[in-house]
C-alpha cells in the first residue's frame, strides 16, 4: 500500500490511528489545529502544496468530529487557485465543510461562475459539482442560465453535461422558477434522447424532480422514458461499462420506472402496450441466481417494476401475478428479499384493492412477526396492521397479543397501541373487545398508555349490555396474585360503577369487592389511590341497606387519608367522608356515570401521530426522555393547593370542566358533555402582555380569571399558575417552570458564569397529539446577546424538546428579554409573551468584602454619577432580616458588621458584563426603625450606568416584592374549578 502523496497528512493520520483513546486523540488534534492555525495566520512562506495539505488535514479532523470553523476561509480561498490540484481540493473541501448559508460562499461566487463559463472542462466539472452540492438561492438566481446552456449545448461533452444536469436539479430545488422558461419541457424531452448513459442517469434524476413537482408539463417525455426502458430491458446499444453483472444499468432502469410513477396513467395505447411488454418481461424473466450482486441488481429492477405495475393499476391478472410474486418473496431465505416483500405488500395495500389476495399469505406474514430480524418484524407488524379488517381481526389481534409477551421492548408500546386500535375498529362483538384490552393490560401493562384504558371505560359506560360482563371480567383479574397497576385502576373503576350488577354471584358482594380491591391499595401509587377511594365511595353507595361493618371500614380509610399529603387524595377522602354521611343525598351524587359523547378514538389519532415519527422515535422513547428531563427541570415544590400533575378519571359527576386538568383528553373523559371546541385564548392574550410590562404581581392571573364567568374559561387554553410569579421565582432560582398550560410546559434550567449564561428551555408537549406551528422567538433587549438554537415546528406527542439559549451580557441594564412562544392548538393560535429570567442579578457574583477592602473603595467613589443616593418611600413592610434575605437571594451579599448602625445594611457583589468586565458594586441601605416604609439607599460602582441600573433594580425589588411563595389559601376562584368545592356548593 503506497502512502498518500502528502507525507505530512499520512503521518498525521497514522498518529491519530495510534492514539490509544479518545483523550489522546483530542490532544493530538488540538496540537494539529494549533499548528494549522499558526501556519494559516502567517501566510507568507505557505506554498499551495502546504495549503492543500492543511486543508485535507482539516477535513480529516472534521470527519473525526471536531470543529474546524476557523479554516473555512482557507478552503474557500483555494477555489481561486490557478492550478488544478489546489483548486480541486478547494472545491471538494468547501462542499464538505460549508453549507449554502455560509457567508464565505458568496466570496467564491464569481470564481465559480468564471469556472462554469470558462473553457476548461475540468474546472467546469468542479464548479458544477460544488454548486450542485451546496449552491443556494443566490447561486440559483445568478447561475441557472449558464448551467442550462451547458446542459443543452451540443458541443458540451458528457462529462460536463452529466454534472450540469444535477447542478440544475439543485438550482431548481432552490428556486423552481429556473425552469420556468418557454419551451423548457421540449428541451427536457430532447435531453432524454441522449444516448450516453452517464448523462441519461443524471438527467433522469433531474427529470424525476421535475415531474414530481408538475407532471402536466412533461407528458411529451413519457414515451421517451418508455423508450429508454425498452432499450435497457432489451439490452440494445448498452456499452459494457454500463452493464452491471450482465444487467444494463440497473440504476437507470430503476430511476426511469420511478419517473413513470409520477404520471397518473399512460394513456397512449401504443406506449402503454410497449411499457407493459417490458414490465411483463421483467416480472417473468427475473430468476434467482447464485451471484449475490446479480441477484440484488435484478431484484432491484423487479421491485421497481412491481411498484410501477401497482401504480398503473394493471389488469387483475397482472396484479395477482404481482401479489403471487410478493407472496413468494416473503417466504424465501434471503432476508433482504423477505424485508422488501413485506414492505411492498404493505405498499400494495395502499394502492389497490387486493386485500383478499394478500390475505392468503396471512399465515406467512404472522410467521415473519417472529423473524429474528427486527427490521423484518417491524415490516410484518405494519403489514398486519394494514391488512386487518373485520374478517381477520380476531386472528390478527390474537397473534399480536401472543407476540406481545416476547416482543422487543422497543416495539411493545407500538404493538399494544396497534392491537388496541384494531380491536376497537374491527371488534366482531364488544365483549371480545373488552377481553382484548384486559389481556393487553395484563400482559403488557407498562406499555398500555392511559388512553387505552380510558377508551375501554368509555365503551363500557356507553353500552349497558356490556357492563355486567366487563365487571365480571374485572373481578376475575383481581383474583390473580400479581396484577399490573393499570389493571387495578381499570378494574377498580369498573367495579365501582358496575359491581352491583354482579351482587348475586359468589364472591361479588360489596364487601367481597371492597376487600379484594383494598388488598391492592398498599402496592399502588398515589394517582391510583384516588381512584380506589372513589370506588369505595361507590361501593358504599351501592350497599343498601348499609352494612355497618363495611361502612366503618371505609370510613376509617377515608379518615386516615384526610391528612394525606397528596392534595387530590386528601380532598377526595374529606369529601367522600362528608358525603357518605349524608344518607340519601349520596345516592344522587354518586350515581352511575352518564354516557360519554361519541367521538373519534383518541387512540387512532395517537397512532396517526406516532406514525409520523418513525419506529425509533416511538412514544415510549419520547416518554422516557421526557421523564428523565422532567426530573431535571421540576425541582421546585408545587404549592400544596395546585392540582396534581397526573390526572385520572374522576368518578364523581362534574358539571363543568376541571379547567386545571392537564390533559384535554382526560377532561373529556371526566364526563363533560360540552363539545370541546378550542377557542382562542382571549384571556391569555389579554393577560400575557401584562406579564411583561406591568409592575409585577399587581394583577395576579388567578384574580383576573376570577372576574370571568366560569363558562368562558372552559374551552380556552390558559396558563396554569401565575406567569409573573413563576418569572419572579426564576429570577432567584436557576431552574423551574417558566410557563405551563394544559398542553405545554416550558421549563428552564440555567447556568451563569461571569457575563455569560446558558439557558436551556425544555418545551414539553403534555398531550397525546402533536403540537404544530411551534414558534419561539426571542425579543432581546439591546444589552443582551441571545442566541436561541432552532426550535422544531412540531413537538411530537408527549415529547420534550430542549432548546439551548446562549446569553451574553453586553452592559448593565434592567431590561428584560422576552420569549414570544406560540403554538397551534386545534385551529387556534396560542401565543404567550414570557419574560425570560435573564435579569441583571444573574450576572452578579457575590463576594463578601472585608472592611479593609470596602472602605477605601467606598470613599474613592465620591459622588454622582458613580455613587448615587436616594430616599425610597413606599417600601414593603419587612423586617431587617427579611430585607437581608432578599438582598442575598438577589446575589447581593450582605456583609454584617461593616456598618456600626444595626438598622443599616451593607451589601456587595461583583457584576459582569462585556463592557464593564468584573466590577465591584457596593450598596448601603439605611432604614428608619420608626418608619419601615422608607429608607435611604446608596449605591456605588466604577460605572455610572451600572450604579444607576443597580439602584433602580434594588428599588423595584424593595417596593413591590413579588411573593415568592404564596401561602396556600384556597381562594374562591380556584375553588370554582375544583370538583370538590363545586360539590360542596351543591350541598
Amino acid at each position, binding site marked *: *500500500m503506497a*502512502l*498518500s*502523496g*502528502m507525507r505530512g497528512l*499520512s503521518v498525521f493520520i497514522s498518529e491519530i490511528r495510534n492514539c490509544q483513546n479518545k483523550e489522546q486523540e483530542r490532544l493530538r488534534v488540538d496540537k494539529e489545529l494549533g499548528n494549522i492555525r499558526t501556519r494559516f495566520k502567517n501566510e507568507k512562506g505557505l506554498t499551495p502544496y502546504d495549503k492543500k495539505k492543511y486543508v*485535507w488535514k482539516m*477535513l*480529516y479532523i472534521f*470527519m*473525526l*468530529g*471536531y470543529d474546524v470553523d476557523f479554516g473555512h476561509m482557507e478552503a474557500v480561498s483555494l477555489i481561486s487557485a490557478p492550478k*488544478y*490540484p489546489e483548486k*480541486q481540493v478547494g472545491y*471538494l473541501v468547501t462542499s*464538505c465543510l460549508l*453549507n449554502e448559508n455560509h457567508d464565505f460562499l458568496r466570496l467564491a461566487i464569481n470564481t465559480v461562475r468564471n469556472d462554469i463559463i470558462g473553457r476548461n472542462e*475540468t474546472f467546469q*466539472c468542479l464548479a458544477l*459539482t460544488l454548486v*450542485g*452540492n451546496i449552491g443556494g438561492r443566490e447561486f440559483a438566481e445568478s447561475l441557472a442560465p449558464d448551467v442550462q446552456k451547458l446542459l443543452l449545448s451540443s458541443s458540451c461533452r458528457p*462529462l460536463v453535461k452529466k*454534472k450540469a444536469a*444535477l*447542478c440544475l*436539479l439543485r438550482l431548481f*430545488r432552490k428556486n423552481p422558477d429556473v425552469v420556468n422558461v418557454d419551451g423548457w419541457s421540449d428541451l427536457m424531452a430532447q435531453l432524454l434522447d441522449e444516448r450516453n448513459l*452517464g448523462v441519461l*442517469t*443524471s438527467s433522469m*434524476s433531474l427529470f424525476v424532480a421535475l415531474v414530481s413537482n408538475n407532471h402536466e408539463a412533461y407528458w411529451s417525455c413519457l414515451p421517451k422514458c418508455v423508450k429508454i426502458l425498452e432499450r435497457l430491458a432489451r439490452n440494445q446499444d448498452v456499452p459494457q*461499462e*454500463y452493464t452491471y453483472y450482465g444487467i444494463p444499468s*440497473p*440504476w*437507470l432502469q430503476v*430511476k426511469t420506472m*420511478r419517473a413513470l410513477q409520477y404520471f397518473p396513467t399512460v394513456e397512449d395505447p401504443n406506449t402503454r402496450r410497449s411499457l407493459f411488454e417490458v414490465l411483463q418481461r421483467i416480472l417473468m424473466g427475473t430468476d434467482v441466481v447464485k451471484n449475490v*450482486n446479480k441477484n*440484488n*441488481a435484478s*431484484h*432491484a429492477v423487479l*421491485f421497481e417494476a412491481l411498484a410501477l405495475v401497482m401504480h398503473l393499476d394493471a389488469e387483475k391478472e397482472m396484479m395477482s401475478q404481482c401479489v403471487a410474486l410478493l407472496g413468494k418473496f416473503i417466504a424465501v431465505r434471503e432476508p*433482504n428479499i*423477505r*424485508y*422488501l416483500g413485506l414492505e411492498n405488500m404493505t405498499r400494495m395495500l395502499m394502492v389497490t384493492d387486493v386485500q383478499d389476495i394478500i390475505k392468503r399469505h396471512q399465515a406467512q406474514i404472522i410467521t415473519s412477526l417472529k423473524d*429474528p*430480524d427486527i*427490521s*423484518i418484524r*417491524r415490516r410484518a407488524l405494519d403489514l398486519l396492521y394494514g391488512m386487518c379488517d373485520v374478517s381477520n381481526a380476531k386472528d390478527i389481534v390474537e397473534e399480536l397479543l401472543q407476540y406481545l409477551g416476547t416482543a422487543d421492548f422497543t416495539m411493545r408500546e407500538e404493538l399494544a397501541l396497534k392491537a388496541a386500535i384494531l380491536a376497537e375498529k374491527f371488534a366482531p362483538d364488544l365483549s371480545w373487545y373488552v377481553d382484548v384490552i384486559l389481556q393487553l393490560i395484563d400482559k403488557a401493562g407498562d406499555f398500555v398508555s392511559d388512553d387505552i384504558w380510558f377508551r375501554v371505560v368509555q365503551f363500557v359506560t356507553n353500552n349497558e349490555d356490556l357492563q355486567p360482563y366487563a365487571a365480571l371480567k374485572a373481578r376475575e383479574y383481581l383474583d390473580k396474585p400479581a396484577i399490573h397497576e393499570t389493571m387495578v385502576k381499570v378494574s377498580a373503576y369498573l367495579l365501582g360503577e358496575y359491581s352491583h350488577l354482579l351482587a348475586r354471584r359468589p364472591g361479588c358482594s360489596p364487601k367481597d369487592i371492597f376487600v379484594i380491591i383494598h388488598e391492592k391499595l398498599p402496592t399502588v401509587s398515589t394517582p391510583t389511590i384516588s381512584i380506589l377511594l372513589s370506588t369505595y365511595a361507590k361501593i358504599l353507595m351501592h350497599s343498601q341497606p348499609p352494612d355497618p361493618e363495611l361502612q366503618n371500614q371505609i370510613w376509617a380509610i377515608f379518615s386516615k387519608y384526610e391528612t394525606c399529603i397528596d392534595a387530590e387524595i386528601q380532598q377526595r377522602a374529606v369529601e367522600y367522608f362528608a358525603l357518605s354521611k349524608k344518607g340519601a343525598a349520596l345516592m344522587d351524587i354518586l350515581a352511575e356515570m352518564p354516557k360519554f359523547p361519541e367521538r373519534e378514538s383518541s387512540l387512532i389519532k395517537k397512532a396517526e401521530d406516532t406514525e409520523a415519527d*418513525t*419506529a*425509533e*422515535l416511538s412514544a415510549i422513547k419520547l416518554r422516557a426522555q421526557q421523564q428523565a428531563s422532567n426530573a431535571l427541570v421540576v425541582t421546585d415544590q408545587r404549592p400544596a393547593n395546585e392540582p396534581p400533575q397526573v390526572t385520572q378519571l374522576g368518578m364523581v359527576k362534574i358539571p363543568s370542566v376541571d379547567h386545571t386538568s392537564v390533559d384535554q383528553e382526560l377532561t373529556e373523559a371526566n364526563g363533560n358533555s360540552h363539545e370541546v371546541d378550542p377557542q382562542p385564548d382571549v384571556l391569555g392574550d389579554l393577560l400575557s402582555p401584562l406579564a411583561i410590562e406591568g409592575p409585577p404581581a399587581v394583577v395576579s392571573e388567578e384574580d383576573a380569571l376570577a372576574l370571568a364567568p366560569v363558562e368562558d374559561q372552559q374551552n380556552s387554553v390558559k396558563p396554569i399558575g401565575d406567569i409573573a410569579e413563576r418569572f419572579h421565582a426564576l429570577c432567584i432560582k436557576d431552574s423551574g417552570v417558566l410557563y405551563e398550560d394544559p398542553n405545554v410546559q416550558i421549563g428552564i434550567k440555567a447556568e451563569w458564569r461571569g457575563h455569560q449564561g446558558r439557558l436551556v428551555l425544555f418545551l414539553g408537549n403534555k398531550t397525546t397529539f402533536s403540537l404544530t406551528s411551534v414558534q419561539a422567538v426571542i425579543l432581546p433587549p439591546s444589552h443582551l446577546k441571545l442566541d436561541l438554537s432552532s426550535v422544531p415546528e412540531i413537538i411530537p406527542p408527549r415529547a420534550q424538546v430542549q432548546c439551548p439559549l446562549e446569553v451574553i451580557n453586553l452592559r448593565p441594564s434592567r431590561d428584560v428579554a422576552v420569549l414570544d412562544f406560540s403554538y397551534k392548538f386545534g385551529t387556534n393560535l396560542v401565543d404567550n409573551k414570557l419574560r425570560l429570567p435573564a435579569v441583571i442579578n444573574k450576572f452578579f457574583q457575590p463576594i463578601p468584602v472585608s472592611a479593609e477592602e470596602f472602605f477605601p473603595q467606598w470613599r474613592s467613589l465620591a459622588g454622582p454619577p458613580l455613587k448615587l443616593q436616594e430616599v425610597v418611600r413606599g417600601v414593603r413592610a419587612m423586617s431587617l432580616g427579611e430585607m437581608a434575605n432578599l438582598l442575598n437571594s438577589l446575589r447581593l451579599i450582605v456583609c454584617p458588621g461593616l456598618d456600626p448602625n444595626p438598622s443599616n445594611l451593607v451589601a456587595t457583589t461583583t457584576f459582569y458584563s462585556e463592557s464593564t468586565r468584573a466590577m465591584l458594586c457596593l450598596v448601603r441601605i439605611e432604614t428608619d426603625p420608626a418608619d419601615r416604609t422608607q429608607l435611604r439607599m446608596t449605591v456605588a460602582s466604577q460605572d455610572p450606568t451600572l450604579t444607576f441600573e443597580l439602584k433602580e433594580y434594588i428599588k423595584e425589588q424593595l417596593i413591590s416584592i413579588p411573593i415568592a411563595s404564596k401561602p396556600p389559601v384556597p381562594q374562591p376562584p380556584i375553588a370554582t374549578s375544583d370538583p370538590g368545592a363545586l360539590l360542596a356548593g351543591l350541598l
Partner: protein
Amino acid sequence: MGIRFILMVNKQGQTRLAQYYEYLTLEERRALEGEIIRKCLARNEQQCSFVEHRNYKIVYRRYASLFFLVGVDNEENELAILEFIHLLVETMDRHFGNVCELDIMFHLEKAHFMLEEMVMNGCIVETSKTNILAPIQLMDKAS
C-alpha cells in the same frame, strides 16, 4: 432527494469516511453516526441489510472490517443502493487493487474524489468505473 449520507466505518466503530448530502451540525453528525453505528454493528449476517432509523433508512454492507452505510429517504430503491455500494467498492478496488481499510484511510482524498464522481447532491451521477476513475488517473499521471 435520495442519498442523504455515506459513511465508511470500521468494526471498532471508527468513521473512516463521511460524506453528507444534507447539512447537519457537527453535534448532529456525531449523534447520528454514533446511533447508526451502534445499531448496524450489532446485527448479524442472517439479518437483512436495511435498518430503519429516525427518518432514514440505512442500507449497509460489510466488507471485511469495513462497513459501508448509506442513509437514504423513503423514496429510494433499497437493492439499487445496496448494489451501488458494491459498485463503489469495485471502483476503489480497480484503483487501489485489493482495496482495504487503510487505503481509504490514507487516501482519503482519493476516496472523496471517487465519491464525488459517483454521487452529487444525493443522486447517482455515473456508474461506469472507467469514467469515474478518469479524473483521478489524469491527476496521478500529472503528479
